[in-house]
């Protein structure tokens, strides 16, 4: 019987397979950041162990880094200490590090792909659940805990039981104005936050094949929000074109050998998935969340659901608690929800294509009075690219704040946070209680919905922008 993409990549990395044991898998690329690595380096030190493969390891700073005044010392002493710990550990063990201020610094899941380190058929891990992002290249990529970070540093392997596989087949074509973010939010709402638990997802079908690498990364990024550790997309010409010429992409004969291998990384026609979900792309529309987990979402044209409409008692209770926390009433149209803050950025939607999409809508328009909009590039390189295209000027002229790269408002570990009771439309990945700051309320949206929302002050789609724009230069 044929094999799925995930099974092929898995099989190619088995170092040891024995009855009654999990497979021991080789790890091709280990990404590190400041939050989940300090205790792992401590473990190495306590046991006198070196990093086994420095040439397969790379670190960057992202979660704690401020996005303003990056040339000044970091104000929060605890954040500063954590960054300094990473710097000390990398220096002591010899790990390549891109610190704050470095041109290659940025959110770890933006940095790996842009350097060309994330390649088809590789295994990629990081102490961060959004490592699933890298699956967009046909890599088997998943988040790990700190004990596993230490394990990979010491052995370049991980003992793992092989998950099941699930096909998410998306046929048709996404309607205009409907993005990868809307698609993945709709998928999560359909299968639930636990629906992918125990599976590696493979996104496939004609709608997926048409997507850019940036859009594929947005989708794979949020696999974990459906409970799946990893999500993958088979590599194709779009993938190869993206990689060609990047700093760590193979060259010459190595490139040819690599592409020949990469072309084999497709699920065989006679392979069987353990589960399959089919989505019709043509039926989708802009999608936003109303609750406190990423599965609590609905089309923007809908209203806040009535908890009483849920048959399942635990879902009903979860919806009740979510509405209470979010300060929303059942039946309220989603478009009537006003926001204080709009955040464009994160490992989900902080790449150049996302910034272009937001800028395109903001050009000649203004952010609504009383709304704060933060635009945070996913990496320093993305920031430079945006500046070279004049996007920073568009954002600033519209009244948005243009910031330096980092995780920023995706999570409350740096100065960019919501105040209690504040409400955001955010292109990030988690709407958990307090995720963006204590008491903060988060609606997950696409960059396009974020931009339209910023202009109108309430949740809105680009189609709602019926105004006449101010011509440039006026």
């Amino acid at each position, binding site marked *: 019987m044929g094999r799925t993409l995930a099974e092929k990549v898995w099989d190619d990395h088995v170092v040891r397979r024995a009855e009654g044991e999990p497979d021991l898998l080789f790890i091709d690329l280990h990404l590190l950041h400041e939050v989940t690595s300090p205790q792992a380096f401590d473990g190495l030190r306590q046991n006198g162990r070196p990093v086994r493969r420095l*040439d397969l390891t790379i670190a960057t700073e992202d979660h704690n880094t401020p996005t303003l005044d990056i040339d000044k010392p970091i104000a929060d002493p605890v954040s500063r200490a954590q960054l300094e710990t990473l710097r000390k550990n990398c220096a002591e063990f010899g790990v390549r590090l891109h610190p704050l201020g470095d041109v290659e610094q940025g959110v770890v899941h933006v940095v790996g792909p842009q350097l060309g380190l994330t390649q088809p058929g590789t295994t990629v891990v990081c102490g961060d659940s959004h490592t699933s992002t890298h699956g967009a290249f046909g890599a088997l990529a998943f988040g790990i805990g700190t004990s596993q970070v230490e394990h990979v540093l010491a052995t370049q392997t991980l003992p793992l039981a092989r998950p099941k596989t699930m096909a998410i087949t998306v046929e048709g074509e996404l309607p205009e104005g409907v993005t990868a973010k809307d698609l993945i939010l709709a998928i999560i709402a359909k299968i639930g936050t636990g629906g992918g638990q125990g599976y590696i997802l493979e996104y496939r079908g004609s709608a997926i094949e048409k997507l850019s690498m940036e859009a594929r990364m947005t989708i794979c990024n949020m696999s974990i929000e459906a409970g*799946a550790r990893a999500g993958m997309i088979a590599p194709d010409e779009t993938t190869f074109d993206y990689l060609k010429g990047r700093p760590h992409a193979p060259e010459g004969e190595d490139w040819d050998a690599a592409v020949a291998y990469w072309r084999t990384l497709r699920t065989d026609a006679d392979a069987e998935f353990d589960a399959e979900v089919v989505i019709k792309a043509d039926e989708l529309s802009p999608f936003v969340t109303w609750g406190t987990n990423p599965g609590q979402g609905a089309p923007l044209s809908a209203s806040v659901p009535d908890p009483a409409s849920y048959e399942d008692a635990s879902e009903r209770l979860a919806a009740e608690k979510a509405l209470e926390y979010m300060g929303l009433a059942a039946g309220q149209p989603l478009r009537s929800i006003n926001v204080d803050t709009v955040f464009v950025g994160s490992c989900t939607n902080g790449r150049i294509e996302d910034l272009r999409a937001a800028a395109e809508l903001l050009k000649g328009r203004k952010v609504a009075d009383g709304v704060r909009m933060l635009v945070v590039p996913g990496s320093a390189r993305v920031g430079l690219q945006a500046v070279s295209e004049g996007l920073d000027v568009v954002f600033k002229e519209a009244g948005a704040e243009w910031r330096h790269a980092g995780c920023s408002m995706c999570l*409350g570990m740096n100065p960019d946070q919501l105040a209690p009771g504040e409400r955001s439309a955010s292109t990030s990945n988690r709407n*958990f209680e307090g995720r963006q700051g204590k008491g903060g309320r988060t609606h997950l949206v696409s960059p396009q919905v974020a931009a339209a929302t910023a202009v109108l002050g309430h949740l809105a789609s680009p189609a709602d922008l019926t105004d006449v724009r101010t011509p440039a230069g006026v």
Partner: protein
Amino acid sequence: MEAFTTHTGRAVPLRRSNVDTDQIIPAHWLKKVTRDGFEDGLFEAWRKDETFILNRPERHGATVLVAGPDFGTGSSREHAVWALQNYGFKTVISSRFADIFRGNSLKNGLLTVVLDQKVVDALWELTEADPTAEITVDLQAREVRAEGITASFELDENSRWRLLNGLDDISITLQNEADIAAYEAKRPAHKPRTLQA
């Protein structure tokens, strides 16, 4: 890792589903660079409400957390496991755990036990009615016992063996160093490297 064989203790019934890792330990606690001192961060936002179950005097000293489905969703932060352990929990029972959280728990000796929601419901009813009721989690017999309740649970033999003996994964893997070296020797040249050779 501390070994886990069998544990008996009082319970905290937590009637919530989708308890994500941001609720278990909020992000601002993750700036710490140690594995201890996270107990005050456990469920920090919810504990501000004095009626929250963890704040009730009769639950002090409880060591068994009985939670709703999809416990530990969200981030890979192992700090969530450390916070539960630092607070004093030895085991968590739920009908479904998030994958990464489960993996992290078993690597730290915090036994996560998967039981049918019906059994979880029964444990909730028992321990809500009687806060002094004890629950026994017996890894040797793979069984959970409480007054009027006996339920077996599954855990793969390899994980069970490592937990019962408190074994360190890295030492076990390094016994297979020759296999790792052999694999490394045959890796194709086109594979990416972060440093120039």
